[in-house]
């Protein structure tokens, strides 16, 4: 089996002292930023991108994946103790978790979240190890036309299917695609969308956009909405124990959550919101009748165990399209992809062959990270609670310090800072008007790759556009994309007619 050999190779490299160190640092940082509201893995990895000039690719990616996984663990702590989700995937956890905390059951809620995350993380990582090579084999059959179709599908799902409104999601995507076009065209050397400014010839920096949208915009939006004296209460943790009945009630939700989350992560539908929501509704339906009344009242442990497992399994799943196809389906994955690019490594089907050691070490490190995280999370809960208690003024002031240095460090240019603030202001209004920000980052990074695939496909076909519909693979993907875009609307019209 390819996976077994790969994992054996991976573990021999992952279990060396430096790589264990990177994993531990990543897990620690990731949990901390996951716990802190207003700062997430995408922003953290963007700020740490300069590390790619200092350490080996393997070390950097172990660090980044540790942060990615750690943020998923940390986010649940905030959801449960503060009733404010630390990460978007933890929104659902806050529903039941915060109610349990309110009723003095924060300990079991945290324990079931951590153990559920662990089980799902292991299941998800096994999924990467065994499904990854299969997808690679399939992906090697794809030509540029199919790749382009796949990227279009990804654009549709991240912008139009997820989130509140297809129109606003697509607008965010359009903004990202436009930002991605700025700079010199790689095929012909022509400057594009630069307003004739030489400063823009190198394109807009991804770090700058990510920091602007995730840090500056968040701070500005919080200030806009800030009202004095508003401070959520951190609930006491109590005893971190799962009773026998808690364990029995958590077990199947963990398994179901993990099983539900992973495929959602793998599909180019990106994001952890949908599987966590589905898991929540599933557990609510499947709960034993004697505990059904706890949902929405005192807090049901099933409603924490399932979504938390789904959240982590989906997070693991997101790494599959990134590593095997080179297609990022979340903002964090997009930033990691740009880190690959700064090493001159192109993720995609060839990655498993050309960088086999890197890939398998990374996957093995994900197992290591999961073990570290469950160990870090439960005994060190006191530390995370203290991080949680950092007051808002100092927290946002601190985030902006990091935003400033991360941006100013790109080229010591005040122009970059002004651009950062400009993007921050746009991001603030995007929040105000409910435009999602993740499609901007994904569009900016995936857009140029999609254009390249398009032009390659048309060069091969000698300029014949019908290549996208005559190749069966490409046609099938395009039909799915079209259905994803129009399906919900057609269904709405149809059900309205049926009702009338």
């Amino acid at each position, binding site marked *: 089996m390819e996976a077994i050999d790969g994992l054996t190779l991976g573990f021999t490299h992952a279990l060396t002292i430096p790589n264990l160190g990177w994993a531990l640092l990543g897990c620690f940082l990731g949990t901390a930023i996951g716990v802190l509201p207003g700062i997430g893995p995408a922003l953290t990895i963007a700020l740490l991108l300069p590390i790619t000039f200092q350490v080996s690719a393997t070390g950097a990616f172990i660090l980044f994946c540790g942060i990615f996984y750690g943020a998923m663990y940390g986010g649940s702590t905030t959801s449960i103790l503060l009733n404010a989700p630390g990460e978007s995937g933890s929104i659902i956890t806050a529903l039941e978790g915060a109610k349990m905390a309110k009723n003095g059951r924060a300990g079991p809620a945290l324990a079931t979240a951590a153990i559920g995350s662990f089980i799902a993380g292991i299941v998800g990582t096994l999924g990467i190890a065994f499904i990854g090579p299969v997808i690679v084999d399939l992906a090697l059959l794809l030509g540029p036309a199919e790749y382009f179709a796949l990227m279009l599908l990804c654009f549709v799902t991240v912008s139009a299917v997820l989130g509140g409104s297809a129109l606003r999601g697509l607008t965010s995507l359009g903004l990202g695609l436009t930002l991605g*076009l700025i700079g010199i065209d790689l095929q012909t050397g022509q400057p*594009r969308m630069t307003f004739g400014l030489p400063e823009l010839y190198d394109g807009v920096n991804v770090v700058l956009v990510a920091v602007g949208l995730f840090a500056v915009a968040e701070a500005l939006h919080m200030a806009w909405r800030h009202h004095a004296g508003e401070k959520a209460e951190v609930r006491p943790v109590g005893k971190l124990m799962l009773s026998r009945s808690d364990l029995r009630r958590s077990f199947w939700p963990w398994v179901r959550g993990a099983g539900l989350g992973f495929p959602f992560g793998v599909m180019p539908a990106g994001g952890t919101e949908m599987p966590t929501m589905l898991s929540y509704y599933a557990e609510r339906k499947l709960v034993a009748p004697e505990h059904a009344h706890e949902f929405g009242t005192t807090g049901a442990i099933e409603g924490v165990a399932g979504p938390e497992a789904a959240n982590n399994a989906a997070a693991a799943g997101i790494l599959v399209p990134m590593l095997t196809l080179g297609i990022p389906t979340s903002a964090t994955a997009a930033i990691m992809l740009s880190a690959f690019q700064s090493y001159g490594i192109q993720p995609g089907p060839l990655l498993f062959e050309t960088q086999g050691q890197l890939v398998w070490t990374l996957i093995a490190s994900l197992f290591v990270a999961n073990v570290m995280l469950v160990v870090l999370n439960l005994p060190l809960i006191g530390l995370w609670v203290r991080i949680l208690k950092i007051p808002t003024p100092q927290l*946002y002031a601190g985030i902006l*310090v990091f935003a400033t240095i991360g941006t*100013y460090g790109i080229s010591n240019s005040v122009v970059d800072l002004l651009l950062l603030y400009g993007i921050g202001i746009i991001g603030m209004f995007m929040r105000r008007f409910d435009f999602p920000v993740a499609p901007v980052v994904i569009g900016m990074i995936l857009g140029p790759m999609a254009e390249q695939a398009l032009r390659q496909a048309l060069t091969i076909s000698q300029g014949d556009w019908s290549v996208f519909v005559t190749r069966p693979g490409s046609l099938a993907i395009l039909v799915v994309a079209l259905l994803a875009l129009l399906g919900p609307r057609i269904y709405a019209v149809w059900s309205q007619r049926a009702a009338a």
Partner: protein
Amino acid sequence: MINRIAVPDLLAGLFVLMLGLVSLWQASAIPVSPLYAQVGPKAVPYVVASALTALGALLVLEALRGGWSANIAELAEAGPPNTKALGLLGAGLVLNVILIGPAGFSIAATAQFVMVAAAFGSRSVARDLLIALPLTLGVWFLFVQGLGVNIGAGLLEGLVLRLMGREVF
């Protein structure tokens, strides 16, 4: 409520429309490549810019029909913007941009830290200063020494380096 023009939403839509038109203008300004290519450098920019323009027009249309903000509870229930907090935060950012060149990162970021903390309701400037100075210095050393980011030493960083007996670069 229905069919009333939502002015803020209209402005947001018009902004997107404007972005789309500016992109169209920039797409048309791309010089035609002398190199042969099946798809030139202009094609994709035209498609993206047209799409953005169309989306802007659709958003304007939606705003004219009552907009979307009123239907989103979180947006509809929010109070008026806190102009004082926004003003303080904005002033902090501006101060940072002004100071970072002449005084260096730590001083500029400390000034920004104090202003931002004040924007979010912190009352003790002295305490914030005491937090900000070591934090910004620490962050500077972390990025310059740890991550190898090239940020020149300002007044404060130079002073600390000299105290440590090291060369100021």
